[in-house]
């Protein structure tokens, strides 16, 4: 690998994004923007019941309607095997996925798909949906996680016995799994503590709230080939799932990644794609399906809600000596809540010898959860960071000082197994302590809260291709859907490595036929892993460029070095040759061996874990319960900010989503288990005027395994806000709130209760 230049020409600058003009002028093609000749419109029939047996489905009237070209039910879908496959940051069972795509014998939540139609117009498709007659036998349902664990709760799956416990339970229950992580001896730890705090907390499920609803166009050929265009966090993920669910060879499926209007983890699974393929093969015509906003809320995944108990003990001088947590997390209708990562991350920001975390994965009659930024971590770390604050006030120590005293650092043994390498928890706390924000006095009814957060970040499979064009410009191909400006970062890393102008490099996210397997855009992995592949591919192209120069100069390739975008003789012993640029070498490529390129197909290892510390000021109106976020600062160890604007954007977006989670976002069900707020009017994400400017401080502790020091940055920033806001509200009101969201009615009710 080339010596890393001391100063960067492109890395760390704020270049113009290659996809920017198309997006601001409305030319960019999102999931719903493709139109093909003869294309049909597909629509879905959804369950009106939270829990019911499907007794019969009569599609005859819909099929008879003029303009209807195909109607499907679960009978059109092959039976899936219950084999776990990788899905985003979790494993998923194909049979469960199949049931979520289209219900087979039973519906497990209101909004679950039971049938689908394709017709020549949307209007006809809507009418066909209304003509499908489904007979249900309604069953008792359960929504809440603790209620679902009761002995007399309706059981969703009669073949589900709690995993991870011995002996295997004799009766089926809604508890899918139990996980446990331990370090040291918590009993001895608590015995040594001078102060012990134990509190219960709850959080509600929250939706990722991406602006673009799920959308797909599928075109199945009579010979069995299938083309799919859709917006997702991984067109290879779509290929894997469609191939697995419909039992089609992967080579026959080509998926093209449309531009994506947000995902945040919510687009790491499929809902419409297999239906569109089935409708297309049945009708022989291309089919477009687009969810309405209401369908996005009713039928796509939020992240879990949870109930938890957090207990922490510390000595008088502020050393945390024992930590204990129990987490109950809602999975939705099938197993798979992020209880594993929630348990692993819970106490990870701290260097503590005695830790125990037990977690339960619990199903209930609600939408199946799917990844949402740092799945699980915001939930468990919310409880922990509230208790850290309680410890600080009990001990009379400044809350940041307490975090600094106990911060994980290089060499700390984390309860989930790893020993940390170079990490920046200490530095983020120190930077927060040094801010002017932290020292600014507050007024009446105002309070300040702080909280830290940890996330692993991941690597995984990525590929990249660099092609030197005949004029010396550079085409860069990779297959990670660009959600946060990654094309710009890829082109910057290629330009920096190759030593050419960033604007000469054109990055493209290519289809599944044009590059190798990529894991999803998730786990904060793209700038790290795909970036690593890009640098490796660029270095391979550089080796080829050096070989071509060696050929032209008739010297050994070892005699040619690559510097500043030019091939140069390694020393005067090699000979006296003028440096050759990329363009010079490209112009002669046909005489020196043909087109010049470099490729890399990797499974990136060594993603650097990352930490953040946030400061939040709020004002609480004691009479109406309205919380105003006055000021917010997010500090994070980002490894290396390739494009600082997009890194800052990640911090700001994470803070905004976390503030919504803390203050107003929740699912409201009626007594029949029907969702009452399936829209942005009553599912309240913050609007722009709800938020102050989110100030950011980027700390750069380079990740030694990445050529430019990149760590993932996209997930950490959604972790601290829940507790930062909760701690600020507690400081402003003198009352600790143990339940999210802290909506105005909840605040008024709790303050009245406290008197």
């Amino acid at each position, binding site marked *: 690998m080339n010596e890393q230049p001391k100063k960067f020409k492109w890395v760390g600058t704020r270049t113009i994004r290659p996809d920017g003009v198309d997006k601001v002028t409305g030319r960019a093609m999102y999931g719903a923007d493709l139109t093909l000749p003869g294309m049909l419109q597909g629509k879905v029939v959804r369950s009106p019941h939270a829990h019911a047996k499907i007794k019969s489905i009569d599609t005859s009237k819909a099929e008879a309607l003029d303009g209807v070209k195909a109607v499907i039910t679960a009978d059109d879908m092959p039976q899936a095997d219950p084999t776990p496959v990788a899905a985003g940051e979790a494993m998923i069972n194909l049979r469960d996925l199949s049931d979520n795509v289209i219900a087979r014998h039973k519906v497990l939540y209101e909004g679950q798909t039971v049938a689908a139609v394709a017709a020549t117009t949307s209007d006809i498709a809507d009418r066909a949906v209304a003509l499908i007659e489904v007979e249900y036998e309604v069953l008792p349902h359960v929504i809440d996680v603790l209620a679902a664990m009761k002995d007399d709760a309706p059981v969703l799956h009669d073949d589900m016995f709690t995993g991870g416990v011995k002996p295997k339970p004799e009766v089926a229950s809604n508890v899918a799994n139990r996980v446990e992580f331990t370090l040291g001896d918590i009993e001895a730890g608590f015995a040594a503590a001078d102060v012990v705090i134990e509190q219960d907390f709850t959080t509600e499920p929250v939706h990722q709230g991406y602006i673009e609803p799920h959308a797909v166009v599928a075109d199945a050929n009579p010979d069995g080939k299938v083309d799919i265009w859709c917006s997702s966090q991984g067109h290879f993920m779509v290929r894997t799932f469609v191939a697995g669910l419909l039992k089609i060879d992967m080579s026959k499926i080509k998926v093209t990644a449309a531009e994506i209007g947000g995902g945040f983890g919510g687009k790491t699974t499929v809902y419409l794609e297999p239906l569109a393929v089935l409708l297309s093969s049945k009708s022989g015509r291309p089919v477009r399906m687009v969810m309405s906003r209401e369908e996005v809320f009713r039928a796509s995944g939020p992240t879990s809600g949870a109930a938890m108990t957090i207990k922490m003990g510390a000595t008088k001088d502020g050393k945390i000596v024992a930590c204990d947590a129990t987490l109950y997390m809602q999975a939705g209708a099938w197993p798979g809540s992020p209880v594993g990562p929630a348990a692993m991350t819970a106490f990870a920001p701290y260097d503590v010898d005695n830790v125990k975390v037990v977690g339960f994965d619990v199903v209930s009659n609600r939408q199946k959860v799917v990844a949402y930024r740092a799945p699980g971590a915001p939930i468990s770390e919310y409880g922990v960071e509230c208790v850290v604050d309680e410890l600080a006030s009990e001990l009379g120590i400044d809350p940041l000082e307490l975090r600094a005293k106990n911060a994980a650092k290089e060499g700390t043994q984390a309860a989930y197994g790893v020993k940390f390498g170079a990490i920046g928890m200490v530095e983020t706390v120190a930077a927060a302590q040094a801010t002017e924000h932290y020292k600014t006095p507050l007024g009446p009814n105002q309070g300040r809260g702080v909280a830290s957060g940890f996330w692993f970040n991941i690597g995984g499979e990525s590929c990249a291709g660099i092609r030197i064009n005949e004029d010396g410009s550079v085409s860069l191909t990779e297959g990670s859907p660009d959600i946060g400006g990654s094309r710009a970062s890829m082109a910057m890393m290629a330009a920096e490595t190759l030593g050419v102008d960033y604007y000469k490099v054109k990055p493209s996210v290519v289809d599944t036929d044009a590059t190798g397997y990529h894991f999803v855009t998730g786990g904060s992995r793209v700038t790290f892993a795909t970036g690593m592949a890009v640098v490796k591919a660029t270095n391979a192209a550089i080796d080829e460029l050096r070989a071509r120069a060696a050929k032209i100069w008739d010297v050994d390739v070892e005699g040619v070095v690559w510097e500043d975008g030019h091939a140069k003789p390694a020393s005067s012993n090699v000979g006296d040759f003028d440096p050759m640029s990329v363009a010079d070498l490209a112009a002669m490529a046909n005489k020196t061996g043909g087109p010049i390129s470099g490729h890399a197909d990797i499974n990136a290892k060594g993603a650097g874990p990352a930490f953040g510390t946030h400061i939040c000021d709020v004002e609480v109106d004691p*009479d109406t319960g309205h919380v105003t976020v006055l000021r917010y600062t997010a500090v994070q160890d980002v490894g290396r900010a390739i494009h600082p604007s997009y890194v800052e954007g990640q911090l700001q977006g994470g803070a905004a989503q976390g503030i919504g989670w803390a203050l107003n976002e929740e699912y409201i069900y009626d007594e029949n288990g029907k969702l009452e707020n399936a829209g942005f*009017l009553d599912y309240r994400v913050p*609007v722009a005027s709800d938020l102050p400017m989110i100030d950011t401080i980027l700390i750069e502790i380079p990740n030694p395994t990445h050529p430019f020091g990149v760590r993932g940055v996209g997930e950490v920033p959604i972790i601290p806000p829940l507790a930062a806001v909760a701690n600020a509200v507690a400081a402003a009101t003198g009352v600790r709130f143990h339940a999210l969201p802290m909506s*105005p009615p909840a605040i008024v*009710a709790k303050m009245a209760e406290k008197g």
Partner: protein
Amino acid sequence: MSGMRYEAPNSVDEAVKLLADANGAARILAGGTDLLVQLRAGMIDPGVVVNIKNISETHGIAADGGAFCIGATVSGAEMGEDAALSAAWPGVVEGAELIGSTQIQGRATMAGNLCNASPAADSVPALIAAGATCTVVGPDGQREVSVADIPTGPGQNSLGNGEFVLNIKLPARPANASDAYLRMIPRTEMDIAIVGAAVNLVLDGDGTCTEACVVLGAVGPKTITVADAAAALVGSKVDEAALAAVAAAASAAATPIDDKRGTVAYRTKVAGVLASRAAAIAAERARS
């Protein structure tokens, strides 16, 4: 939405004829910020949509000896830019300006807000507190109606076949008079009021309240005019005791329901909080 006709007449007579001929199957289009949403959601399926924005009598804000006549198609943004109106009726203007967001403000009208008859409509409590009237035109000519008599229940209004609202009128007012409107929403905009409260009052030379009207929104199927709260203000200097009495009277008068937007207990309490705060603001404005 099959076979919907769109019309944009230039005169009141043409509009009235189109509406009357449609026999209930017509809908007026002003700003369209309710109508278009309802059309898209499939809540309504009108045979004809009549845009009234080409009718000159629905345009502009006319001031006449301290009174104002606001055309039915005047947007919230236009009202906010009218200095004289904003000085005389700051509560009415702030109610209209709270509707939606900057984009919605460029379109949304008070007449549309009134005729749409949502119990949570933001501009209506202050209009009623102000004693506003409106001109209704129809097949039988023209009539003046109190604004309070237009909404009859959620989504229902008292307009007959062929009728529409041409303008809204605010009376001239004495010295030391002002008004205020406050609403509670969990966010800062793009939301529906959980509680709204408007207060209009007149003070005499030494700051004693001589006239008052307190109106609540979103805590009943229609707005609620709280006579006891007005009585608590009249004769007082709008001091703390009077404000506490306003709060108690407003909470007592509220008849909210439990729903996804708020509980009975919360809405009852906040009705009092907002009514007393609005009274304090109106008094402060009247004094200055």
